[in-house]
């Protein structure tokens, strides 16, 4: 019985490694691409190594968030092999997941690295030959919403994504109360008066 299970297991290992998947007690890396060329790329033009750290430590910089990455924007040339070192500094699960990649290279267009706890893993993908901005995030419930969101710009990218910490603003905005301290009110009063006086002045000038 056990031998049969082992055989099944080995069989399965071979099939999963073909599908580009490594999985264990440490976490998993899914849909890696080390050598398959994206459409239009004649060759792998270059190689880049990046290290991405994930954890609550990186949320400090952005008030109101809880989780974050050491870097929230990545820029790569086209047809470039990117070797990612992903480090998790928390005692919980974190992910680094890129979406929208070509589906003929990555199942569901996804390159996915996940660590079940504190630790480190490596994985690679090859950037396509299109100028595009890809979403990278941690898809654990509310981790992206609370700061674990980044963008990957290939060949200059195709614009920015919303609510990337430190880079772009929210589309569904949070509301904050106005600071009613003297200094803030004074600034508001001065600016308001400035607008008022300029308008009156212009009207008088025109009359003359």
């Amino acid at each position, binding site marked *: 019985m056990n031998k049969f*299970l082992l055989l*099944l*297991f080995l069989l*399965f*290992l071979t099939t*999963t490694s073909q599908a580009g998947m490594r*999985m*264990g*007690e440490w*976490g*998993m890396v899914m849909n890696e691409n080390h050598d398959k060329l994206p459409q239009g790329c004649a060759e792998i033009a270059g190689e880049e190594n990046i290290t991405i750290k994930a*954890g*609550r430590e990186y949320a400090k910089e952005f*008030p*109101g*968030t*809880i*989780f974050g990455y050491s870097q929230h924007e990545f820029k790569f040339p086209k047809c470039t092999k990117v070797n990612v070192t992903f480090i998790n500094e*928390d*005692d*919980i*699960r974190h992910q680094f*997941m890129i*979406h929208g990649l070509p589906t003929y290279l990555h199942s*569901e*267009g*996804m390159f*996915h690295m*996940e660590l*079940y*706890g504190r630790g480190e893993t490596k994985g690679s993908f090859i950037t396509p030959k299109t100028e595009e901005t890809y979403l990278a995030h941690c*898809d*654990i*419930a*509310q*981790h992206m*919403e*609370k700061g674990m969101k980044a963008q990957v710009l290939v060949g200059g990218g195709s614009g920015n994504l*919303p*609510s990337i910490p430190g880079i772009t603003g*929210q*589309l*569904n*905005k*949070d*509301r904050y109360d106005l600071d009613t301290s003297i200094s803030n009110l004074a600034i508001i009063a001065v600016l308001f008066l400035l607008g008022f006086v300029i308008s009156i002045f212009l009207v008088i000038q025109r009359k003359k």
Partner: protein
Amino acid sequence: MKKIPVIGLVISAMVLSTVALFLYDPSLVYARFFEYTGMPAYQAAPNSKPKPEIPPAIICDEDYPEWRKAYTIGGVNIQASDACNPDNPYEVAAFVRGTNNVIMPVLMRTQLSDDAVIKTNDRDGDGDPDDIIIRIEVVELNGRSPDSSELVPGFEIAPGIKPGAWVFAPKSRGMSTVNRDDLNANHLLRLPSAPIRVEAGDNVTLILENTHYFPHTIHLHGVDHSFENNDGVPQTSEEMTMPGEQHIYKIKPRHAGTMLYHCHVQVQVHMMMGLQGFFIVEENKPNNWVQTFNVGAGKVRKPSVAVLEDYAQEYDLHYQAIDTDLSDMIQESNDVRQLAKSMNRLYDITDGTDDYFMLNGRSFPYTLRESLITVEPNQHTKLRILNGMPDTLSLHTHGHKATITAYDGVDVNPLAQITRDVYSVTAAQRIDLDLYTKDDGLHSYGAGMWLMHDHAERAITTDGMAPGGNVSQIVYRKYLNKDAMPSGQGVNLTPYFTPEYYNREIPSWTLSDAFGFFDDVGDRRIDNYKDVLLVIVLGALAAVLFLLLVAFYGFFRGIAIKLNSAGVNDE
């Protein structure tokens, strides 16, 4: 101004007002008017509005109906389920064997992490593992997104109803949503917090991995545990587990029974947001591989050895309530500091009222999809009941009187056991019931589709709309149709599966009411000479009032001019 036109205008206004009153309802002017003139003419009430189109609704939405049958996976015998939405049998097998003991193809058919449930070492040599490591994460449902108004990850408790909630869930892997386009939560992330089962005498290591943005703990209510670093109370036994941290609870429970676990940080908020679940200690028996998690509660697909000695099947029934004043808070900001302030300091539970009532994380009609108790005649079914609501649960079983065999995990002396049809379960209390389907006029009145619900009537509604709330059924299997739904002689259930029904857009009896007696009333239209005259007279009255205003303006202007020429020098 000349005086005569003003007096004329005033008289006209009075006359027109009187005419208008007479046209509207003469008895307002003179109470006995109709006694002298004869009764008013018949005027038909407005027609009904057309019956609303009932949008097509899916009654049973299951993607994997084959999961309903009985399975044997990795040597684990998994009972069949009659639910429309059955549990994934591969996940059940992984929970029973431990994620470390199942082969990869089984684990790949689940969404569990490899270290979710680790089972090793048969220390007492009785054929089952005794060192159990259980990892739990904290998950938000229906939270806010900074990118759109869509709630993530989504979880509907009833058609169109998505209250914010937090749950304990087994440690999983991959995406929290179904995929990048369907932002509903994957099936492991749901209300209620997953029931946990261990065996008495097990060395249980319960690891809380706080994946949420607030601090949490676990309090093992009623479960035998030592105090230091283990009681889950931030004021006494330990620090809170902050976001990104983990806490290890070590227990070796000596006493078996139905218990409960819940977060003990800001309990009035965290427990009511959903951080509460069954913690069941099963009796120590040989070859007793227990099902560590029962995701979504409901039927236990692999009951323990002790339960199967006395019962054919077992169900976990977790009752919860939601106050939308609290649950909406997490949907109003994405800034955790604002959330902490509103939930800890602005929410006042003493002013709170519950709006939604759930059985196993859903309200009617979704309870029909996964919380039916399906029975055969002459069968003993074990029901474990947990009241997670802040008020007493008055659970009523139609057609059956069940016997209370345990309170709070302690067996009732068999001679003193009570058999009744309303079971009162106070807040945080658990009772075990023996539901015996013997048609003897006492335990059961015979086969049928018998309702089972909280008899505090607000709990059979969803924010006041009935039928809703925690209504479910005890169904004899011959009444189930091929979609695993109960089918009887009652009304068509389709409207209840539409969000429009709970938005109060559909008349409650619309499909039963062929004559349209109770359709919505149309609004009044101008359709007789009196209404025509009334509107014309009101127009005339408005004109007269306008002219009066003009006259007054001229009068005051005249005074102003006189004052100016007398005292004040103009340029």
